[in-house]
């Protein structure tokens, strides 16, 4: 088989998940090679895990079987890019950073908002169903997908959708596979809808004394000119800019024309001022980079003693849900840091143990309590050693029967990351 095969323990360590290290790792250089590798694995009754940059492998449960890792990082090239058509086709192992550079040269972008873009790949962000803050404005990463070339578990190569901005795909299999964490098919090639880069980007950071927090949140929720992201941050000092020992900060990102961003800034300052917030600092030159770096916080761990949770829901109750998780953390002797997304309604809470022992004894009871309070809460990042003991996917969806049948249809021999997905799929 004409694929790079890695067998040395050092190399294989890169693909370790939890305590499980694969027996082999492949790095195909073409879609045909990828298909051949998957076909052979399926025929041999082995199990494989697909890798992009490995940045979101903290998602999901550990695989029940794991013989082989297939890295798609060598499948990284622009297939076609026509800025005037508003589309780009690429091999899915391209990193998000590379995609950003290619598009920026033509004055375009695709808002993925995924962490660690220099390593993370387009295919990986899609497969993991990554959801970032700017989706409130631009839609989910999978909303930008116009077409995909998939490799199914048995090595079948199937193209779905197309390269046009509209047109039926029959069923949108590409979007169905996005978010399947590599359990339905491999995303090999993808065509994305691109957008013009905004004329102006500005990041506004306002330290929030605790007494101003709720009022500031209320004011931020009703701005006439909406920011593309509005986060209330507590903690995450290393990952998110603007920490200055106060209780928290508002982290607000604007994109648009010069005039609109200027007017939005004036409104923001006056609105936060009215909420008693002492100052709002503006960042223009590095706004996009600083915003992008903040995405790392969603999956960053504190040594081996933290777990990051995300509760999706309505923006109106994001603080209630987020504070519930913070209170529970406190009850179980854990520290907490939080990101409340006022536009999407995501409450992201990282719970941290002061020491490993405290963490090891408290995290499972906390996890149970968190899911009792907020059943749909999922785990974004957790140390491999405790992951098996956590309810990483939260309550099962009412569509579970259909999901199981989809898995049977697409991967009848359970070759693709068995047990990794919701309810043991």
């Amino acid at each position, binding site marked *: 088989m004409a694929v790079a095969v890695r067998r040395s323990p050092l190399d294989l360590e890169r693909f370790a998940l939890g305590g499980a290290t694969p027996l082999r790792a492949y790095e195909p250089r073409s879609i045909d090679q990828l298909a051949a590798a998957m076909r052979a694995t399926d025929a041999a009754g082995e199990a494989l895990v697909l890798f992009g940059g490995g940045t979101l492998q903290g998602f999901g449960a550990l695989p029940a079987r794991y013989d082989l890792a297939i890295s798609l990082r060598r499948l990284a090239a622009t297939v076609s890019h026509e800025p005037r058509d508003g589309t780009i086709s690429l091999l899915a192992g391209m990193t998000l950073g590379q995609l950003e550079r290619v598009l920026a040269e033509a004055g375009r972008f695709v808002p993925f908002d995924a962490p660690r873009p220099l390593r993370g790949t387009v295919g990986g962000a899609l497969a993991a169903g990554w959801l970032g803050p700017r989706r409130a404005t631009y839609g989910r990463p999978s909303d930008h997908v116009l077409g995909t070339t998939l490799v199914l578990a048995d090595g079948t190569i199937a193209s779905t959708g197309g*390269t046009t901005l509209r047109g*039926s795909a029959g069923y949108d299999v590409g979007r*169905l596979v996005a978010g399947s964490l590599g359990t339905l098919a491999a995303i090999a090639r993808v065509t994305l809808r691109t957008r013009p880069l905004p004329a102006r980007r500005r990041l506004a950071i306002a330290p929030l004394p605790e007494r101003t927090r709720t009022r500031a949140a209320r004011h931020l929720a009703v701005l006439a000119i909406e920011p593309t992201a509005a986060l209330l941050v507590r903690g995450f000092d290393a990952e998110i800019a603007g920490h200055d020992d106060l209780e928290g900060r508002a982290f607000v990102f604007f994109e648009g024309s010069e005039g609109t961003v200027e007017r939005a800034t004036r409104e923001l300052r006056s609105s936060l001022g009215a909420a008693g917030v002492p100052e709002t600092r503006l960042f223009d030159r590095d706004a996009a980079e600083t915003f992008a770096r903040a995405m790392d916080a969603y999956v960053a761990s504190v040594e081996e003693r933290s777990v990051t949770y995300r509760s999706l829901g309505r923006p109106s109750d994001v603080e209630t849900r987020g504070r519930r998780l913070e209170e529970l953390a406190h009850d179980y002797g854990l520290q907490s840091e939080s990101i409340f997304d006022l536009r999407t309604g995501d409450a992201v809470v990282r719970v941290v143990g002061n020491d490993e022992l405290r963490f090891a004894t408290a995290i499972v009871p906390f996890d149970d309590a968190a899911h009792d309070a907020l059943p749909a809460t999922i785990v974004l990042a957790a140390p491999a050693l405790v992951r098996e003991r956590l309810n990483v996917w939260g309550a099962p*969806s009412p569509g579970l029967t*259909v999901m199981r049948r989809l898995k049977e249809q697409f991967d009848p021999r359970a070759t693709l990351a068995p047990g990794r*997905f919701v309810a043991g799929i």
Partner: protein
Amino acid sequence: MERSAELCERLVAALGREAVKTAIEDLVAYSGEARQPGMQPVAVVLPSEAREVSAVVGIAHEFAAPIVARGAGTGLCGGAVPTRRGILLSFARMNRVLALDARNRRVRVQPGATVRALGAVVQECGLFFGPDPSSGAVATLGGSVATNAGGPRTNAYGAMAEHVLALEVVLDDGTIVELDRDDAGYDLLAALVGSEGTLGIVTALELRLLPLPASTRLALGAFADFERALSATLAADANALTSLQIVDVTILRALDAYGRLGVPEGTRALVVAETSGERDDAAANEAALVRLFGERDALWYRLVGDAERPAVRTFLDAAFGALGRVAPNSAILDLCVPRTAMPEAFLSIETAVRSAQVAFGMLVRAGEGVLQPVLTYNRRDRRASEAVASASEAITSACFALGGSVGAEHGFGSVHRSAFSDGCESATLDALRRVRDAFAPSRALNPGKILPEAAWP
């Protein structure tokens, strides 16, 4: 179906006589769409709630009867037209806006509610719903979700798939499930939207709403030929516009654009461009359009004031209907090509219709590369019918050769299904079959749509 009478009795017993229509006039009225005649169902059923839909699914299975869910029948490709005798579900009674959550910009509606009725309700709260099919005054949200419709504003706001937050669905086995896009697991909504009623029956929708823009501007530009209009739209900053359409001379004449909109004689293509947003941005975009019309040799242009804007929308909404004045029948092709391929696609369309000696009108949504040529003819004239069929085939093939696709706004229905499946690799069709069999193993939901019947074992 020999057990038709028994089937009807069971339906009446389950839903009441008022909800089950079997008179011939009802069966005829519900069997076709605006342009596609269909097979008469055994019964038309008008449920009032999801539980009744679930009961109908159970009864249908007992009688091995197919079920076709139908909105207002405004589709142009036969998506809701039965291909086999069975049960036709109309959502005419399930047409309410159930709950509006303005703070979170969500609304819950029944599938029979029309797009514009929803628009009217949410507008009072300073909100609007992005997708706006041109038939939105009568088109239902259930039908729109089945076809992933979006209308001209798709250019800015995307189609239904980007606005559906949750669906209540009656599955193939009669189970009622509430699927939310935030659920952990496979994105089942992604498969359901645009599935033409073949994967499940939607009984309620939760939709994303947007804040009403501070300002909306509309500009008209008249051109001496279609190519010039196309070239102007390609030079426009389509991303700055909510919609960017071109109407050809046939439609302009049929609608009397010259009298109604003041378009000068000699106009053979009219560009209609809308921009929305913050006041300054909308004004800047409008100024850019005016400059563009000047630079691109427009014969004439004018800005449309707020008061007149609804009239222009009504004018455009009537575009396809107006061609009924040109000829008794028409075939509408629903195509999309890469934007930069639009001029070549237009030439192919012209060549095909000239060679087949067919008259045609054309609407283009230039922001997305959507071309909707309408071939007009008289069905009783066999030569004309054959010519339309051959021109349609040539146009569709040319569109595929340019990297294009079909079913832009109306799905495949019965019109485009074979063009899609003929041009599709078997592995792709097989992947679609796997999706269908996972959702609807009985294959009783709107059979003969999306996938060719021959693909069924």
